[in-house]
């Protein structure tokens, strides 16, 4: 049963590690679930799921495993009994895990029925862990933030029903790649400089000055290191980029969350950059590239993201912009060159794998910007290029 739960969790792509599973086993064997499925629901979630984004998947896995055990919301001791020797369980391999006995659902139901009888007697006795009167485990004022509405005598709401509510659906974020990994790559962009008030003791300099001073101590302070890197992100939001929306979003949210950049600006463009870039993804609000080049210092690190895949005339001809009603008097490639000339370091990240970069437009763009794949590796190499000494 419990093992089923483990594999249900894995099937729903919740990254449960053996370590976490073992701590759940320890908690159960020490009786912290109070033989209650409702409490088990909360307990297991706190120990196994460390991201609210997976709460919904957890609800689904929970439902899959425990559906059918709804009437009494209690787990019987017997289930917990397979844990009788918790010490022996530590360090089990998955193979050994699989050899542990499983109880089938029928046997469970019978045990539950027995348990239910027992349970009512216990309630009469007034067990303090279970409610303050009434037959439900959560009798607290008839309401409870988990949404377990307790409706008097008969209708208590079980953990499975709570799971079925799927209250955490809105928190889901099916990300295949980790934002954190991207952040780690972006972190290399940090450019640490000593800035601001002098607050750190510079030990080397103090020793040096003190020696010069003939042993009379001379304290030397220096400002602490602060991050001084400024990042400009320019993203292609054109139609051909649609398949890469996910990875783009990931890069964007990672960069956006990097609170260590001194400044972070982002704009969108469509296929190629012309006179204007856009501040929103639907491209309603524009700002001119010239203004951008005027206002942003040359030390901004520029990351352009796009497939650079277009008809060559879109790049090299005046009026080549893909929009019929939009006329650009300066060809796109010229704008790209101007950007490259203004900023000290720029890179172009391309979601298309490098083996397919032999298209004319991509070749042209590559002559202007160093191009890297939009993968973790590519990002790594790209950031190395951005922070290189100039």
């Amino acid at each position, binding site marked *: 049963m419990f093992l089923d739960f483990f594999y249900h969790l894995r099937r729903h792509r919740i990254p449960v590690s053996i370590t976490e599973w073992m701590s759940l086993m320890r908690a159960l064997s020490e009786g912290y679930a109070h033989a209650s499925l409702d409490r088990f629901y909360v307990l297991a979630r706190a120990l196994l799921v460390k991201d609210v984004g997976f709460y919904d998947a957890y609800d689904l896995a929970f439902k899959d495993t425990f559906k059918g055990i709804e009437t009494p919301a209690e787990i019987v001791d017997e289930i917990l009994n397979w844990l009788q020797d918790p010490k022996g369980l530590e360090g089990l391999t998955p193979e050994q895990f699989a050899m542990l006995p499983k109880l089938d659902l029928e046997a469970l139901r019978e045990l539950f029925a027995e348990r239910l009888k027992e349970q009512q007697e216990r309630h009469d006795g007034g067990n303090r862990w279970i409610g303050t009167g009434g037959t439900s485990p959560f009798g*607290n004022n008839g*309401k*409870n933030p988990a949404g377990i509405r307790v409706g008097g005598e008969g209708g208590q709401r079980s953990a499975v029903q709570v799971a079925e509510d799927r209250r955490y659906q809105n928190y889901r974020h099916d990300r295949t790649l980790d934002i954190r990994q991207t952040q780690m790559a972006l972190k290399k962009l940090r450019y640490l400089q000593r800035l601001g008030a002098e607050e750190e003791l510079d030990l080397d300099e103090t020793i040096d000055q003190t020696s010069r001073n003939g042993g009379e101590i001379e304290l030397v302070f220096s400002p602490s290191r602060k991050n001084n890197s400024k990042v400009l992100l320019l993203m292609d939001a054109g139609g051909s980029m649609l398949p890469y929306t996910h990875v783009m979003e990931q890069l964007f949210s990672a960069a956006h969350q990097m609170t260590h950049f001194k400044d972070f600006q982002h704009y969108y463009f469509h296929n190629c950059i012309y006179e204007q870039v856009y501040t929103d993804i639907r491209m309603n609000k524009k700002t001119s590239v010239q203004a951008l080049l005027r206002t942003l210092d040359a030390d901004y690190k520029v990351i352009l993201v796009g497939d650079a895949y277009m008809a060559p005339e879109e790049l090299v001809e005046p009026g080549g912009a893909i929009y019929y009603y939009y006329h650009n008097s300066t060809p796109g490639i010229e704008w790209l060159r101007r950007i490259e000339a203004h900023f000290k370091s720029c890179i172009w990240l391309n979601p298309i794998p490098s083996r397919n970069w032999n298209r004319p437009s991509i070749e042209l763009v590559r002559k202007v910007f160093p191009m890297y794949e939009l993968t973790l590796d590519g990002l790594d190499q790209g950031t190395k290029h951005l922070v290189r000494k100039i």
Partner: protein
Amino acid sequence: MATNGFDQFIGTDKYIVSPDLRDVVNVAIALQRPLVVKGEPGTGKTLLAHNIARALNKSLLIWNVKSTTKARDGLYIYDTVQRLNDARFGDGDVSDVGRYIRLGTLGQSFAADEQVVLLIDEVDKADIEFPNDLLNELDEMNFHVLETDERVTAKHRPIVIITSNSEKELPDAFLRRCVFHYITFPDQGLMAQIVGVHHPHLAEDLLSQALERFYELRQIDTFRKKPSTSELIDWLQALVVAGVTPEQLEDKIPFLGVLLKKETDFDVYMKRAAAGAGAIRSRY
């Protein structure tokens, strides 16, 4: 089946805890694992630690994490400046390095003579590597002081509560060693209880009418910052002081500025009000 020492925490008279969170807190205490609490602002993440300390009658140590905080700051600080100063002016015994080691908040929680509650507040504000740097210390509850070659070991493992506003993702290795709970925004029933703690003499009809309006506001997804518990409590205070009646709340929201703190949110609300959305129509 309750073991001794379990179910220690049941909330306090000042802090209403949901049964879920209560169980999670108690498991974290029993398993001696740090508890990571995430959730919307205003759901009482920081207050939780204060009230665990109150309920269990333990002292509370707070480590406020800032963007410049380094993991080492929490362990100890070697006060070089003081030592050099003393050497210069001949004050004190300079040969004893130990005199110049000051324990940080984490270090103090280890050295305390009885178990304390340690709150590491807003851990996500620090550098992305910060939680990883603390892994070992939190796991083994000891650390090494380089200057004196001494090991500071926790006499009693502190109850560690870590809050995060999820500005950044926390590393997996760190989370694996923690108990995790996401505090959802309380529903009307629990909210009525929470409000009862702060305004015990509030008239029932006023409260239910006010909550009705409040949750209507929270339904509006286009707000940059939705009003939270603390704003609600302030607002109720304002209503009481101004002597607003439940009837007056039916079609308008007085003192809207107490609930909405951002100008853009104000505009959003006014636009909706002008369009006659729902029962909320005018500001006064």
